[in-house]
């Protein structure tokens, strides 16, 4: 007879590099096999617990929480201070299960203690921020003392073969096993301890089981069966083998020889029938799984008292204080108060009060208040900008009423889930804000949210290729040949690259197979860009904490999705360099500074810039794709900028929204709606889905969803959900639409369009917040160009373009660039008044290769006494190494003292060894030949990354002219359809995943930039001439689609054979341009 069975020991892929299945796969398989319950017991981690809990809840399957902890082994050499020990795991394993709420808190505290062990702290108990002292991430270890302090509500199974009891028995040391079991019973209580039996068909299973049973009988402890699961299905064993090898930085063969791989593939979820067969003579071991499962019926509620109380003035509740602050903000935000404002405010306050979120708003308000008081520029982004409360509190800067923003995208009365408030802070001062939050709410209630870094195509190829034993050059070549970010299509690409049939044992076939499995598998935990979790309960009772790599920083084991799904609240404290740029640019303005927050948003000059695509360096509207779109879109009002920000996104592009919108806007096609009922929701975007809020509005008007239901639909569409869950949503939507008089086909098509869009769409409030910052940067660029460019250059790296492209743009806007000069330059770019009274950019020394900040400090210290009078004076007073001085000469910093070649000769003659009297040698007066054409420019590119005296392509111009190639400026003057030849430097290259293999290149020369488009077949045909090339010579047809000019490439030619060379091959080729990524690449430094 088959016994019921609950699996009480299972690892997901959150047992990093030791588990091969997702929590969802484990739950699905467990249910399909007919298991009664399952525990998730990842190694020292609860990182997967929320996903596990959620998947189980969705399927109505009983989930148990737990972890397999690593015990610190007092007998291990490392514990005795021995530094070099064999590569075997430290300590033993112990399976812990959560019996109740107290047990959950115990486990969190225990894991936190294990991870934070040996964290250096100062006298006041604060963690050190000294990088030299900070140990970073470390292998966690639970001591018996930790277990003694944190065991209440926990059940213990004695663990796998690496548990202290089983290991002692395998070592034939029964006394040690008895001692360990006794210690466990003393700590946890006898009724909390089970002897764990596993049967994987390993050679010593029988002997071990017999010994464990003898021990259990002698101590009167119950036995329980587990399968110590590491993958849902047996087919997952290969990936686990590979992960184990990766974890040891070994090949699979090396890992097997060293004993790191299991003997067989039996660590899968076994059915009750199979477990009954394996434990045929021990039915009690199976029955006890059900006894334990029953005891561990615990439903967590992470969201109770989720936020700390906010300190409010005496006599007021949190809500009353919020009410007061909102009304205090009314006169500033709405000088002419209208009833609609008060009505919306009352509605929002009512929802916030019912949801118990007043404290949340106050916490965020307080952070923004702190930031503003210290002059740290900030602005809320995301869905919070839908809220008038956030606007009145100064958290966001966009008036939700003026822009018809939908509060329900942020929070609704029938869905009290956790709203998300994301705030951008000037990147260079964000840390001050984070430290304020730590201080205000205490380190025990505050942590950064983690980011689960998962395998993508290239990391998968590298790690798996090495594990399979591929030679490293092969691994490198394979990784570089991958054109995809995701491992799934990359696996197909690898298979296609093989000539002939792929046999079962073909190495590339195995690699592709593993890559398909490893997609989404976590590699490690990192810090989320800005998510901070603040809780009322001590955080280490809610989620385990770990040390991050960054000194003094602690992260929780949950990522943002888990935090949200657990019902907790995080606040995103994000760093935005653009805000730093704005602050810096404002500081350079002489006289009265403009109030950027109060700009009228209808300046025709700004819209002229936008329509011309003159947006390099500005926020959000500068990319190559934006510049192509702007002349066609021709923004005329602020709402158009909001659309512009939202429309150049994967969602609208993939959903086919862009062209219909542009055609409708240009009057080339009629504005239509799938159904008349959709008109109110889609009117503002001419019947085309552009904003996330429209998904909500469409669901409400088409199918009668409540606001909360509609937002749930949007969320379901935007995050991967099970097919069943999506089908249920779809059925509900279509039924509602039919009831509202829509045809079946129309309802289905509407749902399809919503689904296609929702995963990538922008929310309108977010786009509006960004559009406002875009407008502010456009204003600075238009009216304060020198200040704008100076700040922009100093904030690099940021945005889409290289420093060189930005400088080219500055010059085209009349801002002169002065070369770096040893007696004038600062570390960063600075503004200098030219003789004609204009402000010019003086290049800083930061960009100079090999100088470094310490070198700069020596220059500054010497220069603060007197300017340098000559090269010798410089050398003697700074004592910088000759190699550095040579670089400074070649970069042109001493041009005021003479020709570079002569100065280099002179440098060789100067003896300036530190702490010795200067030895004056006679400098021979030699005649040195002039530098060849372009040689100075090449030195500058090599050492500064650009040439202050002009773009490199100018040296090729005569050869390019002879080859019949036009400059970019000449190309832009050609009519539609003209066949042209052009050469230039690749400034930006993209192969977006949404563009079906099209490659977009921004080509730069001394006259400007032009965009070229390469179709996939052309790209493949001319691959060696286009890929990893800095200089290209192309032929193609001029396209002038509604004002945007580009060249559709038909052919690529060998640049050097036609344009010649000036020695630019000495420059290193561009560093690994990610052809599928949106990131630009620049000349290497």
């Amino acid at each position: 007879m088959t016994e019921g069975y609950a699996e009480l020991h299972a690892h997901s892929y959150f047992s990093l590099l030791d588990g091969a299945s997702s929590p969802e796969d484990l739950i699905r398989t467990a249910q399909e096999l007919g298991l009664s319950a399952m525990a998730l017991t990842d190694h020292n981690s609860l990182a997967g617990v929320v996903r596990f809990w959620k998947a189980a809840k969705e399927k109505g399957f009983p989930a148990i929480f737990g972890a397999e902890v690593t015990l610190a082994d007092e007998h291990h050499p490392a514990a005795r201070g021995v530094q070099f020990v064999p590569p075997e795991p430290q300590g033993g394993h112990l399976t812990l299960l959560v019996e109740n709420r107290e047990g959950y808190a115990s486990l969190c505290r225990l894991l936190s203690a294990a991870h934070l062990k040996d964290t250096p702290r100062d006298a006041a108990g604060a963690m050190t921020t000294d990088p030299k002292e900070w140990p970073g991430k470390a292998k966690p270890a639970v001591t018996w003392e930790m277990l003694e302090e944190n065991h209440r509500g926990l059940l213990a199974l004695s663990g796998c073969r690496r548990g202290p009891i089983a290991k002692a028995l395998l070592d034939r040391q029964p006394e040690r096993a008895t001692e360990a079991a006794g210690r466990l019973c003393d700590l946890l209580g006898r009724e909390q301890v089970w002897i764990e039996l596993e049967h994987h068909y390993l050679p010593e299973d029988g002997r071990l089981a017999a010994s464990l049973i003898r021990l259990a009988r002698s101590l009167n402890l119950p036995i329980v069966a587990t399968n110590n699961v590491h993958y849902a299905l047996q087919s997952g064993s290969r990936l686990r083998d590979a992960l184990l090898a990766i974890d040891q930085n070994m090949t699979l063969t090396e890992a097997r020889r060293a004993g790191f791989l299991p003997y067989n593939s039996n660590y899968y979820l076994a059915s009750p029938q199979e477990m009954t067969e394996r434990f045929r003579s021990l039915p009690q071991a199976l029955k006890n799984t059900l006894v334990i499962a029953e005891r561990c019926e615990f439903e967590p509620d992470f969201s109770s008292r989720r936020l700390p109380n906010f300190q409010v003035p005496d006599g007021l509740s949190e809500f009353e204080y919020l009410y007061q602050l909102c009304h205090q903000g009314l006169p500033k935000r709405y000088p002419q108060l209208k009833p609609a404002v008060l009505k919306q405010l009352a509605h929002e306050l009512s929802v916030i009060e019912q949801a118990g979120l007043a404290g949340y708003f106050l916490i965020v308000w307080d952070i923004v208040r702190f930031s503003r008081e210290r002059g740290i520029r900030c602005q809320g982004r995301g869905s919070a900008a839908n809220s008038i409360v956030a606007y009145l509190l100064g958290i966001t800067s966009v008036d939700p009423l003026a822009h018809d923003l939908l509060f329900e995208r942020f929070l609704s009365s029938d869905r009290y889930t956790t709203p998300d408030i994301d705030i951008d802070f000037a990147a260079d001062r964000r840390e001050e804000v984070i430290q304020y939050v730590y201080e205000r709410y205490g380190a025990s209630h505050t942590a950064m949210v983690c980011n689960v870094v998962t395998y993508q195509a290239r990391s998968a190829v590298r790690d798996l290729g090495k594990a399979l034993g591929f030679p490293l050059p092969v691994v490198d070549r394979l990784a570089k040949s991958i054109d995809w970010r995701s491992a799934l299509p990359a696996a197909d690409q690898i298979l296609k690259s093989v000539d002939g049939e792929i046999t079962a044992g073909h190495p590339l076939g195995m690699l592709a197979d593993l890559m398909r499995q490893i997609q989404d598998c976590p590699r490690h935990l990192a810090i989320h860009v800005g998510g901070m979790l603040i809780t009322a309960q001590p955080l280490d009772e809610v989620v385990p904490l770990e040390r991050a790599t960054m000194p003094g920083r602690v992260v929780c084991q949950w990522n943002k999705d888990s935090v949200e799904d657990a019902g907790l609240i995080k606040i995103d404290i994000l760093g935005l360099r653009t805000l730093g740029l704005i602050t810096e640019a404002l500081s350079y303005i002489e006289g009265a500074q403009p109030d950027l927050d109060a700009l009228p948003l209808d300046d025709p000059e700004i819209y002229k810039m936008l329509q011309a695509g003159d947006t390099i360096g500005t926020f959000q509207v500068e990319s190559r794709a934006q510049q192509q779109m702007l002349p066609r879109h021709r923004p005329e009002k602020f709402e158009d900028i909001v659309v512009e920000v939202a429309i150049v996104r994967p969602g609208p592009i993939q959903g086919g929204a862009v062209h219909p919108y542009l055609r409708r806007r240009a009057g080339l096609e009629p504005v239509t709606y799938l159904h008349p009922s959709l008109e109110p929701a889609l009117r503002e975007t001419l019947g085309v889905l552009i904003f996330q809020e429209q998904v909500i509005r469409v669901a409400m008007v088409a199918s009668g969803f409540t606001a909360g239901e509609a937002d749930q639909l949007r969320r379901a569409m935007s995050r991967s959900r099970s097919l069943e869950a999506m089908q249920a949503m779809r059925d509900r939507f279509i039924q509602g639409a039919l009831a509202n008089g829509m045809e079946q086909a129309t309802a289905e098509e509407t749902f399809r369009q919503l689904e296609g869009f929702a995963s990538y769409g922008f929310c309108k409030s977010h786009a509006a917040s960004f559009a406002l910052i875009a407008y502010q940067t456009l204003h600075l660029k238009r009216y304060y160009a020198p200040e704008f460019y100076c700040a922009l250059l100093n904030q690099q790296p940021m945005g889409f373009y290289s420093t060189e492209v930005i400088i080219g743009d500055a010059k085209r806007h009349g801002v002169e660039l002065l070369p770096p000069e040893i007696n004038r330059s600062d570390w960063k770019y600075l503004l200098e008044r030219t003789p004609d009274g204009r402000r010019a950019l003086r290049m800083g020394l930061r960009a100079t290769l090999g100088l470094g900040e310490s070198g700069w400090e020596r220059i500054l210290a010497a220069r603060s006494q007197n300017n340098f009078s000559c090269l010798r004076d410089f050398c003697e007073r700074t004592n910088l190494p000759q190699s550095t001085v040579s670089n400074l000469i070649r970069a042109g910093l001493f041009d005021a003292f003479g020709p570079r070649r002569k100065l280099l000769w002179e440098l060789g003659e100067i003896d300036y060894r530190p702490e010795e009297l200067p030895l004056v040698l006679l400098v021979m007066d030699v005649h040195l030949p002039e530098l060849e054409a372009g040689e100075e420019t090449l030195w500058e590119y090599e050492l500064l990354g650009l040439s202050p005296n002009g773009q490199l392509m100018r040296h090729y111009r005569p050869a390019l002219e002879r080859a019949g190639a036009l400059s970019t400026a000449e190309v832009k003057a050609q009519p539609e359809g003209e066949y042209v030849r052009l050469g230039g430097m690749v400034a930006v290259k993209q192969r977006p995943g949404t563009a079906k293999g099209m490659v977009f290149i921004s080509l730069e020369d001394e006259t400007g930039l032009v965009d070229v488009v390469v179709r996939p077949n052309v790209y493949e045909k001319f691959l060696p001439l286009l890929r990893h090339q800095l200089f290209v010579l192309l032929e193609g047809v001029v396209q002038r689609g509604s004002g945007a000019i580009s060249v559709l490439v038909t052919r690529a030619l060998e640049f050097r054979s036609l344009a010649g060379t000036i020695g630019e091959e000495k420059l290193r080729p561009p560093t690994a341009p990610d052809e599928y990524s949106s990131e630009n690449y620049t000349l290497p430094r």
Partner: protein
Amino acid sequence: MTRLWKDGSLVQVEQDPRGRVDSFAWNGRTHAVEKVWQHWQVDSDWWTEEGRVHRDYQAVTTTDGLLCVLYFDFQDEEWYLSKLYD
């Protein structure tokens, strides 16, 4: 002397309903199994050129006094004699 066959010597096996070896025929003689002493499985080396080793091993004694190790190869689905202890 222990005899060990690297790749195993093909045998015909009869099993009980639980998959344990009941008897096996080798070199023209049938040997009845007295007891299965150990039962283990190996699944390894799937990544090597030589190929995967995926076997179910049973160490048995026979009624006629042999102590031997047999294995079932999951890939070619045949039984082999791996070791014979003398």
